[in-house]
């Protein structure tokens, strides 16, 4: 038995350069800092956070669309961060992506068949007829018909476009798909269809997902494990259900209480909790994160140590970790 995870992200950091200063000095801003998590084969890791939390940056680093400034990404036993400038084709086959906005993630000038076909041909030399059959099969897998292949992206509905983006990703039978907000641009009823499709594909293909989203309810639904990010750092990880029902980090609690549910009774309770927690304040600018725990400026339980020291991820239970100086403090769970 081999229990090595499919993907291991180890203390990953990504820094963006903020232009060049007048005297040639370069300002850097840390978009992701010391993020570590693992994705086992066939599992889904959900990454939740608000804008500026660095969740998409993490995904882009794994996709090698960005060069990390520190840490390691190990995929299937291979050190991805050691690849150098050229990404091996096998990695390009194994790791695929589905972006948020299917309209801009599909080339407006290419038909669905071209888009999917060129992906397949890059990795397998197929003749015209075989390629056609392969594209049709892929379309069928995502619930589209052969005739959709001849459409241009703008001729499809939002849900259909996202199916095409998913088809492009699964066409080469990847082991990991990074889903970056795959349903947040869709209507409620279409959202459900796409989520169901993703879970179906996971069952039949055994693919793993890194599921990035801002909506905790959606992430909880699809993920086995959840990671919550705030201002570039992972603040809590654990099994999806446990994190959502018994959050440890105050930010996770704030996220949960802020999420809206269509149940008026439950929503009234959440609302009361949310109001009791106070306004919550403004999120600090990611360009100038506060010292210590980045959340301490909005945290009700913040003490002196929170503004001085960066809390490290520590175990708070089986398979659970959180980065909070007051984790497990009885005052906080009350």
């Amino acid at each position, binding site marked *: 038995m081999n229990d090595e995870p499919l993907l291991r992200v180890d203390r990953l950091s990504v820094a963006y350069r903020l232009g060049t200063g007048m005297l040639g000095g370069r300002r850097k801003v840390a978009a992701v800092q010391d993020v570590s998590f693992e994705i086992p084969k066939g599992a889904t890791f959900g990454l939740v956070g608000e804008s500026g939390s660095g969740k998409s940056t993490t995904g882009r680093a794994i996709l090698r669309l960005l060069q990390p400034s520190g840490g390691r990404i190990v995929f299937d036993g291979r050190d991805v961060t050691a690849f150098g400038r050229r990404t091996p084709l096998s990695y390009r086959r194994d790791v695929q992506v589905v972006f948020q906005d299917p309209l801009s993630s599909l080339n407006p000038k290419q038909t669905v068949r071209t888009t999917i076909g060129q992906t397949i041909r890059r990795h397998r030399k197929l003749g015209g007829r075989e390629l056609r059959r392969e594209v049709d099969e892929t379309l069928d897998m995502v619930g589209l018909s052969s005739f*959709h292949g001849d459409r241009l992206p703008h001729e499809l509905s939002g849900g259909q476009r996202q199916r095409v983006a998913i088809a492009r990703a699964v066409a080469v039978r990847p082991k990991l798909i990074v889903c970056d907000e795959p349903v947040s641009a869709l*209507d409620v009823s279409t959202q*459900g269809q796409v989520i*169901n499709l993703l879970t179906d594909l996971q069952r039949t293909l055994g693919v793993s997902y890194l599921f990035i989203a801002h909506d905790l309810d959606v992430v909880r639904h699809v993920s086995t494990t959840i990671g919550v990010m705030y201002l570039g750092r992972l603040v809590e990880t654990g099994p999806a259900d446990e994190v959502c029902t018994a959050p440890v980090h105050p930010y996770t609690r704030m996220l949960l209480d802020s999420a809206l549910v*269509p*149940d008026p009774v439950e929503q009234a309770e959440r609302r009361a909790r949310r109001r009791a927690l106070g306004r919550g304040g403004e999120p600090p600018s990611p360009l100038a994160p506060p010292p210590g725990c980045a959340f301490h400026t909005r945290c009700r339980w913040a003490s002196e140590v929170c503004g001085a020291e960066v809390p490290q991820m520590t175990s708070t239970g089986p398979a659970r970790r959180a980065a909070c100086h007051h984790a497990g403090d009885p005052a906080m769970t009350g």
Partner: protein
Amino acid sequence: MTTSADITPPEEQQRHGAARRPVRASRLRRPAVLWCAVFLGVLVLVALAAPLLAPYDPLALDIKNKLASPSVAHWLGTDDLGRDVLSRLIYGARTSVVASAEVVAVALLLGVSVGLLVGYLGGLWDRVTMQVVDALQAVPALLLALAMVAVVGNGLVKAMFAVGLVFAVSFMRVTRAVVLAEREQLYVDAARVTGLGRAHIVFRQILPNVAAPLIVQASIAAGTALLIEASLSFLGVGIDTTQVSWGGMLETARQFQSEQPLLPIFPGVAIAVCVLLYNLLGDGLRDAVGVRDPAAGAPARSARTRTRLSVVERRPAEAAPASAPADGTLLSVRGLTVAAGDTELVSDVSFDVRKGETFGLVGESGCGKSVTATAVMGLLPGAVRVTGGSVLLDGRDLVRLGERELQRIRGERIGMVFQDPVAALSPSHTVGHQLGEALMVHKGMTRKQAAARSAELLSLVGVPDARRRLADYPHQFSGGMAQRVVIAAALACEPELLIADEPTTALDVTIQAQVLDLLDDLKRQLSMSVLLITHDLGVVADVCDRVAVMYAGQVVEVGSTEDLLLSPRHPYSEALLAAMPHGAPVERLATIPGRVPPAWDWPSGCRFHPRCPYAVERCGEGRPEIADGARCVRAAELTLKGVR
């Protein structure tokens, strides 16, 4: 494994495709563009077939017949050496076409390849190239051509090469700009992730997007090249004596026009007409390809409706089936019908917003909720009209008011908040200026009073340090704070009704909660009513007292928030609730099969019946009315599941 609920039948797909594609094609078929293309095609044909068409050798001298007027033998007369003007014009076309073609070819080849390269590579390459290019662009094309001729000797090919070089700069700029924009598109990232190489991405993914602007550029460059060729020949530096050029003909004509006044007319007209044609073609093409493709779906469609619509005359709003609004009602929408041409976007929408309540209008995209809101505010775009019903604000029908009166009501009695706070604020004025303006116009305040009141408003909506922040520009506010500013602006004149169209959709979850809390507090504090348009039933559960669910342009259910969410009476409300993931995960999310039909394709009978699990035969007939809060003929017999 076809879970595929949003598959549309092929016929329907085909119809949509067919309806959309001709938009561009038909624009290309506009007479101006077509005629230009035909004439230029003829010009090229003439140039190619010059030896066949020309009645004489253009260089054959016939001194006896010099400077002859048009006759049967020489249709356009002869020049100072007795050469046939018509033949020379025909051969001159050849020179012009060759010159234009060379310039465009050099410019395209050089400009596009350099543009693609530096655009995609970026960084140092880009910066250095752009410096060189800026320097090059400072040199006029004609001057460079003259210098080239002076250095390497006479000759059309050499001179035109120099012109092509200068033109390559503008081609390069266009290409680079498009590449820079496209490089950031997600589809390029997606292509990289699938392992497609750099060359493939540049040539197969990005290049096709450059094509449209380049065609326009090429057409205009061809015209200018023709003009430059004529100028050079006129100055006698372009061509040698074995070639015929319109410019050269003009120069000859200049010398002999006192003896033969017709001489300058023919080459002059030829040059003018050809340049004009090239430019008109360029303009026409620009209009035709002006719509950028990614967005082509939407704008193209609206453009189409617009043209169709202008024919439809405005029908006066019909008298509303006026049931007097109940007491305590502030806004009463009665039978509101909005149409774009013969396509109804919103049909017979009725609801009441009571004083001091938050009323939610909820539905998926395309259900008509935003159209309803814009109709209430009287802000419908030109081609879309209210064709029936009324919007009563305290008993006064807004639909019948003129624009001036409406404007006053919008300023003083109705406040508005939109989805994107940054777009709702002017980027070039301070927040204090924007808030103060409204107060001075509508409330007649002095500048000082307005500033004081603005600060009050900002602190009312929870902007910390309000007085100092009045001097800030909108981009200095975060999304949440900017939305607070927009709300403050909407409250400036103490409106009785606040219309908020997806006010929290663009905000982060924790900020969304804060803004909703703010709206709720303000409603109580200022005892105003709020009409909240949203797609999110969670928002409804959080702040709305009553709610109307819209589907395909109709209100399908209306009632108190609790009733509607806990025991919905319309199958669509039930389906929407079931489709939202919340609480402990279930094996599969419930979905609604199919998708919202477009406005021009609403089904007969109940508009939801093709997607409804409870539909029976009679659901497809008639026009179900809203009864007891639900527009469903089976409402009484169904027991539907709420959120619990």
